[in-house]
């Protein structure tokens, strides 16, 4: 059975498809443009007019950043931080969520309330900063990991998922003599792929993109700076260099500590660094898409 199309329907369809087309172009263009510039020869880029594709193709910009020790080290820090952050964050968050999903847990209502309050109330920036100082976490790699062990919003999302798992499944394992950790690792984890994938993505993206803790808690030890910090530095140096260059009448500037004396276009370097920074995420999230849509659905309906 198909209803007849009215004039309004035809206009609506036209509006919808043109909106979508416009959205696709506007979303993708900035990314494609940066990608094109990152593969374009630096001298040619200064002439302007690069759009979707490189005009004079080169790998030189990437060679420059891959041979730069500072960028290389920052990348290692970011990868380490993300891996350790996801592993520990997933463990602490899921154990708490699993516990709170259990009706038998002693003091469950107290613990639940204990977890809900910080979602709305916090001490704010200054006391947190002082606490981190007091704990000796300033200028320490673990400042990236320890304060982020449990994210309560993620915990609530997981708890909703665990609450939907039939209790009988766990009971039968308990009758067979399985202890808490056996049940958790052998029964619950394997059937919770959607929520675990979703939470891993959330935690992973959080760690990958974090810059604030690095900017304010890790000041003295520059070797601990992650990719986002180095990128921030490159971007502001580039912006500065471009302003200088604009007044001097050319955009080829010595990048100082980034380019190590090489004369390269600051914009090319910025774009190449940016592409390298976002690439892992762009590669991963489409594969987890169907899981996080499901995860949000459960969280939003049962939350």
């Amino acid at each position: 059975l198909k209803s007849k199309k009215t004039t309004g329907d035809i206009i609506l369809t036209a509006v919808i498809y043109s909106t979508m087309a416009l959205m696709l172009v506007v979303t993708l263009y900035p990314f494609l443009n940066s990608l094109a510039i990152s593969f374009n020869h630096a001298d040619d880029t200064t002439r302007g007019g690069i759009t979707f594709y490189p005009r004079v193709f080169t790998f030189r910009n990437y060679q420059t950043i891959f041979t730069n020790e500072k960028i290389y080290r920052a990348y290692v820090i970011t990868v380490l931080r993300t891996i350790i952050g996801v592993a520990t964050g997933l463990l602490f968050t899921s154990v708490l969520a699993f516990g709170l999903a259990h009706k038998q847990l002693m003091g469950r209502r107290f613990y639940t309330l204990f977890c809900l309050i910080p979602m709305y109330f916090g001490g704010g920036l200054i006391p947190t900063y002082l606490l981190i100082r007091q704990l000796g976490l300033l200028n320490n790699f673990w400042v990236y990991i320890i304060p982020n062990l449990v994210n309560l919003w993620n915990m609530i999302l997981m708890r909703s998922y665990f609450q939907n798992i039939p209790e009988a499944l766990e009971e039968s394992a308990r009758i067979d003599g399985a202890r808490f950790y056996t049940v958790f690792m052998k029964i619950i984890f394997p059937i919770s792929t959607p929520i675990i994938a979703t939470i891993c993505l959330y935690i992973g993206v959080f760690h990958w993109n974090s810059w604030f803790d690095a900017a304010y808690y890790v000041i003295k030890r520059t070797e601990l700076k992650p990719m986002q910090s180095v990128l921030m530095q490159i971007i502001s140096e580039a912006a500065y260099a471009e302003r200088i260059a604009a007044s001097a009448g050319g955009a080829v500037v010595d990048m100082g500590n980034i380019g190590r004396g090489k004369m390269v276009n600051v914009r090319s370097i910025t774009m190449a660094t940016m592409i390298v920074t976002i690439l892992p995420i762009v590669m991963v999230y489409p594969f987890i898409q169907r899981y996080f849509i499901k995860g949000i659905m459960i969280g939003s309906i049962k939350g």
Partner: protein
Amino acid sequence: MVIPSIIFLFIFCYIPIYGVLMAFQEFRIGDFPGLSHWVGVKHFQELMIKDPKFPQLMRNTVVISLLKLLINFPVPIIFAAFINEIRHPRFKRSVQTISYLPHFISWVVAARLMFDFFSSDNGAINDFLKFVGFIDKPIPFFLRGEYYWGMAVVTDLWKEVGWNSIIFLAAIASIDAEMYEAADIDGASQVQKMWHITLASIRPTIVLLLIFTVGNLLNANFDQTYMLTNQMGNRVLLEYADIIDTYVLRVGIAQTRFSFAAAAGLFKAVINFALLLGANMLAGKFGESALF
């Protein structure tokens, strides 16, 4: 089994709450937390009455938030309803995947991308506007303070529209398909179905998220503001871009006026919480599904 996580929460979420006391005291480094000299509401007076920056901060925070509430809140709802109308599964999936992309990148990167996109020197938007004959000279989008509020709205829209639409899409997915079939039999048009079924059915979700948004009114997106201004060396924008959060960071950590910054933070938190309760009460009064 939950104890390690609970201990963690106690340390990192509960201990900092003494900051509430700090706002009424004169904290000096080395003081035992919560045992500093009491000064009453001195810091609040300094902030609200004596600080010449305060009216500007409030104006920027409230205007940016209200603009986002007015524009960036409804757009994802319309976007979700539009996606729901796409009849080609492959196209639908690509639109979704691509629209989520900007959410996953940091504001560090997003700010730079937007800066180039709207640049007056070969930026795509200016080139396009020139090409269609809309303008003669490029518009300096990121160089004039007066444009900043608009840029805050547009860049936030670019980054989060797709992502914010997911929750509405999830709500739409749970609508009973029989409703659409019944409407077909009654001869309803596509437009009517979109309005009377799709949007009407997700009303509880919309109200719930609206309550949360109102309860966040004094958080005008710290990351975005910080990256679009400081990052680019665009200090000229601060007159229109400086919000409570960026100010707290500046005076609190850079100038080490800890108690004053804590007072500003508390001021923000209290108003936000009051707005959350108010919005929740209003929703209940109008017979909508409230949060609690």
